[in-house]
């Protein structure tokens, strides 16, 4: 189910503005990869090119290729809508649909793919997904309540349940804990460790301890100055990145000298 990702010489543009320049990297299946770097360095922008969500912004485009198990996501024959059905995403702020119940939120993506799902299958899927997101025990008695009635951390786990309900090949997380308290953050981090068994996970985080805790590999992005494109400075195994990075900029950032 999980797939490997190879990015070759990717440039990301907003109209004529080059936002991210010449990124090449590889992500192994069933691993957690963390993107770190100062604000505005293009790590979120780059993350969104992995499921073509950046195209939601008018004028955004890329050069280069993103290969998912060898298939270029930017080939002419590829439909971005289909890409997003295979690459799930969790956002910075929890965003369950406020007018849907907890169960409906979990099933929202499934209903897009498969309109006629039997009642029993739907119930099973809701339970499996919520269990997968470590939320089942907390909400099993109120599945018909609105998703917005949950706490922030629970909402975020609901969003993860919604994302894994469609059984994606890859799960992208864009600062999933930045709006959460430490306890909820811990719950999500534990969850990421479990999800790793089934999914390829890519997480953007501002929290370096979090990157050190959850990820197998870490990529450091940086920006030379305002108006300059963001670049991938280096990528390595997480312990190596946090102990003996090969670039001076990485060391400065990790040791808290800037950013």
């Amino acid at each position, binding site marked *: 189910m999980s797939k490997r990702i190879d990015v070759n010489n990717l440039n990301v543009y907003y109209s004529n503005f080059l936002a991210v320049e010449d990124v090449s990297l590889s992500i192994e299946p069933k691993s957690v990869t963390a993107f770190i770097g100062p604000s505005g360095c293009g790590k979120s922008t780059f993350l969104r090119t992995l*499921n073509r*969500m950046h195209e*939601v912004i*008018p004028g955004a485009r890329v050069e280069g290729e993103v290969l998912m198990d060898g298939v270029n996501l930017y080939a002419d024959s590829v439909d971005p*809508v*289909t*890409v*997003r*059905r*295979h690459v*799930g*995403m969790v*956002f910075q*702020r*929890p*965003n*369950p*649909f*406020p*007018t*849907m119940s907890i169960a409906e939120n979990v099933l*929202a*993506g499934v209903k*897009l*793919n498969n309109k006629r799902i039997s009642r029993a299958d739907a119930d099973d899927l809701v339970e499996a997904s919520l269990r997968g997101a470590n939320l089942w025990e907390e909400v099993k008695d109120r599945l018909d309540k*609105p998703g*917005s009635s949950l706490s922030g951390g629970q*909402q975020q786990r609901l*969003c993860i349940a*919604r*994302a894994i309900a*469609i059984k994606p090949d890859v799960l992208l997380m864009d600062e999933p804990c930045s709006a959460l308290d430490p306890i909820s953050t811990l719950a999500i981090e534990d969850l990421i460790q479990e999800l790793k068994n089934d999914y390829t996970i890519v997480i953007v985080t501002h929290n370096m301890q979090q990157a050190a805790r959850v990820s197998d590999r870490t990529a450091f992005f940086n920006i030379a100055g305002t108006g300059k494109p963001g670049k991938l400075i280096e990528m390595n195994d997480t312990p190596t990145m946090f102990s003996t990075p090969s670039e001076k900029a990485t060391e400065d950032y990790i040791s808290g000298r800037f950013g």
Partner: protein
Amino acid sequence: MTTTQQSPETEPASDYGTHPGAAANRFFKWLSTGAGLLILITLAAVATFLLEEAWPAISLSAAELGDKVSFIKPEDGQSLLEIVGFLVYGTVLISVIALLLATPVSIGIALFISHFAPRRLAQGLGYLIDLLAAVPSVVYGLWGVAVLVPFLQPFYQWLADYFGWIPIFAPPQSGEVFTGRVALSAGIVLAIMVIPIISAVSREVFLQTPKLHEEAALAMGATRWEMIRMAVFPFGRSGMIGATMLGLGRALGETMAVLMIISPGLTFSPYILQPNQHNTIAAYIALQFPEANALGVNSLIAMGLALFVITLLVNMLARWVVSRRSEFSGAN
């Protein structure tokens, strides 16, 4: 405390007393309160006027009123109440036709502007739609009579030929001319007149859909239409209903266009392709007013009172529907 030790010259309150903006603040408070009160007073004055002026006609018996008012014919079994009934029916019927036609088109326009069109085209189109609202209703009436009604006649003929078995599309009785000056035509022109209102309000509501929810839908692989159904419509539902009610308010009160287009009649008939079946309150008042005597004017004002009540109810309903938004919008 230490207050007893302070000398009388250094009054402590002087530092914390009035400040330069206080007068302006007080002035603004009275200005805004006054403006709010003015609305209430106006509304009360209108209601009082309507009740007072309508009373002479309401209090008379049907026979007495029929003797003195030329357009009420007791020999045909007509009473003031019955005429008001016909007119309320006609008004609501034509307004509902207008809304049924205008709402889907308006929602489509609003969605196109808010979610489909490129930004520059969307802006231009928005202005054009607003311009539609600026066309005087008498111009719509003229255009309706001179252009739209002749244009629609073959279509009505076709409707009557193939769908005449559905009661509302029944053709005029043999012998009657197929003029096209019927309730459906009035409804279509009213629809064009309320489209700018409904689409402008819906557009604003759709534009306020949280990006967060739109992206949530798109990121699960929703197409744009699926995203609109998952994120935009649920969010904008009460706004759309409110917009439709505002449109209904305009349609209910419209006078000139209906007056110029429709061949009036007073019945409870469902036949929207037949002339001499329906009329609206506003158009009826405008039609009868020039020739009415004192008691006739009182009768017409009673009809105005009915229209006032309907419009008030519609607007209150719209307010209520829109205010329900806060319940299910979600704090995020």
